[in-house]
């Protein structure tokens, strides 16, 4: 037996079998073009010369027993920092289907990923594969015989939602007749492109999204809006007529707000809304984080910072000590900046304390909505522990808040928007309508739109998820032009449009059999069922099996 000391082994030594993704390389097919190694975002592939012993039996003692063959092969780096992320870029570029990653559920990497003393960080999503709770909610109050069925293809459907503070009807009539201020309300498509910042996304991705959104609004008549995330908005957008499709976010770092405030006099139209981010479902308790890899010249200019530095936003807004204060200061000053003509609302992480925030907003006449981001939300950069285990699932959080509003008769006044895992397994309309029937006025979706519109490779099995380090293989979350030019904004725009068209059709396909066509079925919980008694009880919906 060989002594242990002669094997290069230390606690963090890993073999390919210990990694979450293993490369399967078929040398018989490989043409040694080297494209895979060139494209690999984490440099895990080694294209190297290797030597192979060719044993042979020789009878003549003057000859050596074996000969050696030299060959070129591809190997997987097993360093923790350069492990394969399973993105599949190698197989995408391989001309000969010779290489590709395979998921390894029994990896040991997870125990060693803390090498260097840092806690594990990544971008992307929560690693929880399998059907989500929202995937299991079905729609089963079908109008049969008592009702001529609606035809999703022929009848007209109204499915837009409202974003903004809605007055009680008595107060509306009174104010309208006496010419007083009526809070701004936007009629929008209930599927909002959730806040992803201009720094997190590449310029091409952002441009593609905006182009798609503009097309949906101006050509298809689907009033889609998108939220910026923290970090501002390119000046040409601020001064363009497209600003009305954009929800500008202000967060604890206030990045980008110099540019925004300065652009106000030149704005051609008002933004769709202002979102004040207090928390995010993927990483409650953390502010935004743009890592230095992604702070390019353009981003630095937009945010008013030097190039190439980490940009962590504080966990809380430094000027705030309480929700009362935050409501008073932030919501009112943002409202005032746009002359009380733009809805201003907070975004919080899903939490058992969401109801207290909501009740505070109910009492503030300027608060326009509440956006709750559940634990399944995505992010550009976060700690694993935050992504996986910190936060509150969205369904029961939204339901509790909605029922609380119902008790006070205020459910029409403060719309609740829900996010966090909407469409995580592709069932975006099912998930969103379940949330809407539980009481949400609409949903925000980030990861889904990245997957659908730009082909993001991330999965709940921790595939890819390197959005934080600027090497996004699809060019979605990179600020490196060499990488993001892979992504053609026109293609993204095309996919955005296709995605929203299909969402609109599916929404009708659910509403029609429920006998609904006149308004979005917010709070229509009698239509929902789930084959899980506990979940049904918790959500006050029907248990079906």
């Amino acid at each position: 037996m060989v002594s242990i000391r002669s094997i290069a082994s230390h606690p963090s030594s890993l073999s390919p079998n210990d990694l979450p993704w293993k490369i399967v390389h078929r040398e018989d097919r490989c043409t040694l073009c080297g494209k895979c190694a060139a494209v690999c975002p984490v440099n895990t592939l080694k294209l190297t010369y290797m030597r192979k012993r060719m044993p042979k039996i020789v009878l003549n003692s003057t000859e050596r027993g074996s000969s050696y063959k030299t060959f070129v092969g591809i190997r997987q780096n097993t360093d923790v920092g350069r492990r394969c992320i399973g993105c599949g870029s190698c197989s995408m570029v391989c001309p000969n289907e010779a290489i590709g990653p395979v998921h390894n559920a029994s990896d040991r990497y997870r125990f060693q990923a803390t090498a260097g003393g840092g806690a594990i960080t990544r971008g992307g999503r929560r690693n929880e594969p399998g059907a989500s709770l929202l995937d299991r909610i079905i729609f089963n109050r079908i109008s049969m015989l008592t009702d001529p069925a609606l035809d999703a293809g022929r009848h007209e459907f109204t499915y837009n939602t409202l974003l903004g503070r809605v007055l009680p009807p008595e107060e509306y009539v009174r104010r309208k007749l006496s010419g007083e201020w009526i809070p701004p309300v936007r009629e929008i498509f209930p599927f909002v492109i959730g806040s992803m910042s201009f720094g997190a996304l590449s310029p091409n991705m952002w441009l593609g999204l905006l182009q798609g959104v503009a097309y949906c609004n101006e050509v298809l008549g689907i009033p889609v809006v998108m939220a910026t995330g923290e970090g501002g908005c390119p000046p040409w957008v601020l001064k363009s007529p497209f600003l009305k499709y954009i929800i500008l976010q202000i967060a604890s770092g206030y990045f980008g707000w110099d540019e925004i405030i300065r652009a106000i006099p030149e704005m051609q139209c008002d933004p769709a809304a202002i979102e004040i981010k207090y928390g995010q479902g993927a990483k409650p308790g953390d502010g935004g984080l743009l890592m230095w890899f992604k702070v390019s010249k353009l981003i630095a200019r937009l945010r008013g910072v030097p190039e190439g530095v980490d940009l962590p936003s504080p966990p809380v807004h430094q000027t705030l000590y309480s929700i009362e204060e935050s409501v008073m200061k932030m919501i009112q000053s943002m409202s005032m900046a746009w002359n009380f003509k733009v809805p201003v609302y907070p975004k919080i992480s899903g939490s058992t304390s969401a109801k207290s925030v909501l009740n505070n907003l109910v009492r503030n006449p300027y608060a326009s909505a509440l956006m709750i981001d559940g634990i399944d939300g995505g992010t550009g950069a976060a700690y694993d522990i935050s992504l996986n285990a910190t936060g509150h699932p969205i369904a029961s959080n939204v339901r509790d808040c909605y029922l609380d509003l119902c008790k006070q008769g205020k459910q029409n006044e403060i719309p609740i928007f829900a996010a966090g895992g909407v469409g995580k397994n592709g069932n975006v309309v099912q998930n969103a309508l379940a949330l809407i029937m539980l009481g949400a006025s609409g949903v925000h979706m980030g990861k889904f739109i990245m997957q659908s519109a730009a082909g993001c490779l991330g999965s709940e099995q921790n595939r890819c998820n390197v959005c934080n380090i600027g090497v996004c293989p699809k060019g979605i979350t990179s600020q490196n032009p060499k990488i993001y030019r892979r992504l053609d904004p026109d293609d993204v725009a095309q996919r955005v449009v296709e995605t929203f068209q299909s969402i609109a059709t599916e929404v009708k396909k659910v509403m029609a059999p429920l006998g609904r066509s006149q308004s979005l079925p917010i709070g229509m919980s009698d239509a929902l069922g789930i084959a899980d008694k506990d979940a049904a009880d918790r959500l006050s919906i029907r248990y079906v099996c």
Partner: protein
Amino acid sequence: MCRLAMKTASKPFSPFSVLEGMEAMQEGYDGSGLGLLLRGLDFTDYKYQAGDPILSGIAHTPEALHRLNNIMESKGFELNYDHEFEVTRSMIEAKDRHKYLLRAYKKPAAWDSLSEDEVGRELMLTRLELRKNGEENGGDLTAFSLWPDVAMIKEVGWPLEIGQAFGLNNDRIKSRVCFAQGRQNTNYGINLYACHPFFIEGVATMTNGENTAFVPIKDWLSGKGFPGYMGYQSDSEVFAHILHYVTKQLKLPLQAYKHVITPLANKELAAHPQGDFLRGLRDVCRRLIIDGPNAVIGSLPDETTMVVMDAKKLRPAMVGGKPGEWAVASEMCGVDALIPDRDRSKDFQPMRQHTIIIPPDRQELEIWSQFDQLPLIQAA
């Protein structure tokens, strides 16, 4: 599907004639129940005093009747008239009907100082108290309405037979407005409270259809904290409550009802003379938007009657008549049976945008389109 029949005439007529109108449409309902609303009452054996509240309901047991009497007495109501129906018990399916109530009371003297609205509120609260008392005692007391000049009858069974069983063909009761609906509830259990028409503070509706947006509407109305917004054994009850809310709480003209339950689409609002107001109204009353196929017939305290359609006109309704006498029915043959000697060429089938209003003078139909200017709002 169920069938509706409504007649309104300047001269009181027998409710039985409306049941005959129902019978003409008999293929359209299952005969599981009948609901009648009579307004503008005329009794052969009693001279009704305008303004006296009339209680309609059922005391299912002698004890319930006793409790009812106690409650009414303790509140200071004086019983002026107790209508005894000539009931043929064998024709009625239900066996636990001790006494059908149709009684005229004199208001408590203590209410003399109250305004008309306050009296209305007290009457509603009294009705709710009776209802609650019945519910707390195994459902032995049912109170449909307590309101001046309004009587309601609800019973399980075939409409015409119920009319015969109650002796409605003997002309002892007549009215100037009569609503009849011929079916029990569509989606929820059979319950007398689930039977149309529905009544709240003088406002009543009956509906042919299914309201698929029932739960969110119910949740919103219940959250208003108004004591009368309760019950909801039927998905159609909300139509009456919305009509009450629009006319009595928001104090908007009757035409606004249509804009609340089936608001116009954006492009239609853009072309409407009050589009800006109506768009806002749609937003603030968004939880009151109804859905599904519905023909709603409504009755207001001043004897105005009305008909509105769902936004897609998925349910039938026919209006016909002549000055002094008008009828609405789900089918043409129903209108024929109710008012045979009219000019049929003037019959009108309301479409999705229409509200048909028959004013108290009953001289002509007001066919009001949702695209038209609203009255009053502009003046205000």
